[in-house]
């Protein structure tokens, strides 16, 4: 039998429907692959018993002809999603051995449709990071090897300090690495400033951050509530659309979840894009952008033009202010959201001489450096005397950023094409001594989309000279993810997939 982990979600669904293999066999193949890839550190918790029980139930429903749209499809879950009875940590020491007594809405919808849980995936602590290196469980290794590295050299580094191996992006680095390394057929992820799209770009996978309000945030560990959105990472555009169809939908338990109908996003694949107007924003041509990224961007535009789309230059004048404004808004919301980790109700408790000391010691030992710094920045910009100068000003600039997009869409643009990231994947520990702003620049092309609440799809557009994946980003109108899937499929058809050969 062929290696079932190499299949796409779509192929696996056809194979299950055609009775070429069972959901149990599919789950077993993935569990074996996960075990053999433990050194990549993509999974922080494996749930083989649950996976096999869910697969068995899926096989029974398949046999009865009652299959859901994802029946028997094994997926990984970012450890930011609360899973009932299964440890959920946000990759932070402060949650310790937290075991939720409830299930997040997004994951419950995936199980409703027959998906099978393989385990929980690594991520940057509380989704704060762009390399998965802030995780309390340690870094995740990108399944793509650095330029000119042999498999032997890769294996040796994997058994050692991992230095030189590449990061899978972040914060959804476990999700992107697991999909790229064939350790699941798709994964849940979350995106606050680029945490789905940047990891997808670094690993040759496809990820979408839906419109704000499309997916329920209920049961997802909160980082910055006005920016957080859940979405899938998958091997292909169609697989991504299939997962998204299950994950999306109104939820009364999230007051910001929008009550609009959820289309079958897969139906958008193969739809003609002839006559669509695609904007190329001049402000994304940033100083020092590698020629390879510039070339990739042009190639992406050519592919869409070849399919009949019209390419126009557009201007989004406030683009450069999105990242600094984000680094006020996101930490401000984080400082408030993370106030709940007090050592009293759940998670880690470090004893203190009084209640304040208990809070301070618990939070000092429970949070990592990046998280502490962001909480402190957020506390500062919200404090008396600084609120107007920082927070209020940032929220006004956010209004201007959103208006930039509204103006472009009002002028008849259907979607916007940009690079997903300013570079290919970098090395583990490479940024350790850089100041925090250098790491933040990873999100320069993606963060605008969160600030404006828009949908953004990242997909591979090609590779750099050393074979590392480079990603393109398509930005859409609010609630028009369908156009992004149609356009993405056109690019995927021409650019092809970018996959990593197994060396670990």
């Amino acid at each position, binding site marked *: 039998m062929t290696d079932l982990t190499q299949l796409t979600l779509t192929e696996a669904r056809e194979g299950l429907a055609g009775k070429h293999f069972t959901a149990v066999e599919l789950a077993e193949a993935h569990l074996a692959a996960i075990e053999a890839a433990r050194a990549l550190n993509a999974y922080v918790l494996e749930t083989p018993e649950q996976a096999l029980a869910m697969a068995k139930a899926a096989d029974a429903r398949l046999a009865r002809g009652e299959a859901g749209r994802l029946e028997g499809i094994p997926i990984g879950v970012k450890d930011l999603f609360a899973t009932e009875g299964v440890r959920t940590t946000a990759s932070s020491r402060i949650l310790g051995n937290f075991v939720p007594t409830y299930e997040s809405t997004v994951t419950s919808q995936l199980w409703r449709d027959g998906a099978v849980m393989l385990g929980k995936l690594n991520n940057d602590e509380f989704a704060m990071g762009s390399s998965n290196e802030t995780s309390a469980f340690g870094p995740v290794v990108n399944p793509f090897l650095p330029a000119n590295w042999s498999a032997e050299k890769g294996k040796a580094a994997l058994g050692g300090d991992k230095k030189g191996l590449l990061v899978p992006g972040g914060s959804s680095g476990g999700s992107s690495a697991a999909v790229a390394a064939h350790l699941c057929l798709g994964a849940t992820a979350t995106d606050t400033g680029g945490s789905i799209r940047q990891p997808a770009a670094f690993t040759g996978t496809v990820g979408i951050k839906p419109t704000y309000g499309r997916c329920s945030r209920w049961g997802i560990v909160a980082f910055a509530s006005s920016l957080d959105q859940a979405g899938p990472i998958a091997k292909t555009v169609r697989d991504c659309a299939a997962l998204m169809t299950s994950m999306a939908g109104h939820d009364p338990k999230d007051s910001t979840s929008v009550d609009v109908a959820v289309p079958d996003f897969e139906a958008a694949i193969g739809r003609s894009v002839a006559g669509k107007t695609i904007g190329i924003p001049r402000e994304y041509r940033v100083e020092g952008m590698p020629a390879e990224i510039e070339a990739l961007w042009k190639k992406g535009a050519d592919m869409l033009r070849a399919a009949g789309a019209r390419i126009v230059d557009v201007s989004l004048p406030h683009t450069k202010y999105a990242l600094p404004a984000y680094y*006020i808004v996101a930490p401000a919301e984080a400082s408030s959201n993370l106030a709940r980790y007090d050592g009293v109700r759940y998670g880690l408790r470090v004893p203190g001489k009084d209640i304040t000391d208990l809070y301070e010691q618990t939070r000092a030992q429970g949070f990592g450096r990046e998280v502490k710094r962001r909480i402190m920045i957020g506390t500062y910009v919200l404090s008396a005397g600084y609120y107007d100068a920082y927070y209020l000003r940032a929220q006004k600039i956010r*209004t201007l950023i959103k208006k930039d997009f509204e103006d472009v869409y009002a002028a008849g643009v259907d979607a916007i094409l940009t690079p997903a990231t300013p570079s290919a994947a970098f090395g583990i520990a490479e940024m350790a001594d850089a100041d925090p702003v250098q790491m933040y620049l990873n999100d320069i092309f993606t963060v605008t989309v969160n600030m404006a609440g828009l949908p953004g799809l990242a997909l591979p557009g090609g590779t750099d000279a050393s074979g590392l994946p480079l990603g393109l980003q398509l930005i859409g109108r609010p609630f028009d993810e369908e156009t992004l899937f149609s356009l993405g499929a056109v690019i995927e058809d021409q650019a092809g997939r970018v996959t990593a050969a197994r060396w670990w």
Partner: protein
Amino acid sequence: MSVDAATVRRIARLSRIALPEQDVPVMQAEINAILGFVEQLGEVNVDGVEPMTSVTPMALKMRDDVVTDGEKAGKVTANAPQSEDHYFLVPKVVE
């Protein structure tokens, strides 16, 4: 704008994060790097611009003001580091 060491200590206190004295200079440098980066927002003319309150134009839904949840103290305290009879235990707060 930049912060001095005393301000860093004050923010740590407000954040309820114990910050050992030897960590203050590093945290101060990092916070100042970020504050330096966001300083460029001062260039933008924001006169007459409304601050964003909701990224999607929607009216928040209202529901009937009735109890919809509860009667699960066991579940609520299940993950508590210390609890007794469905109460969270903390160090003595009132003398």
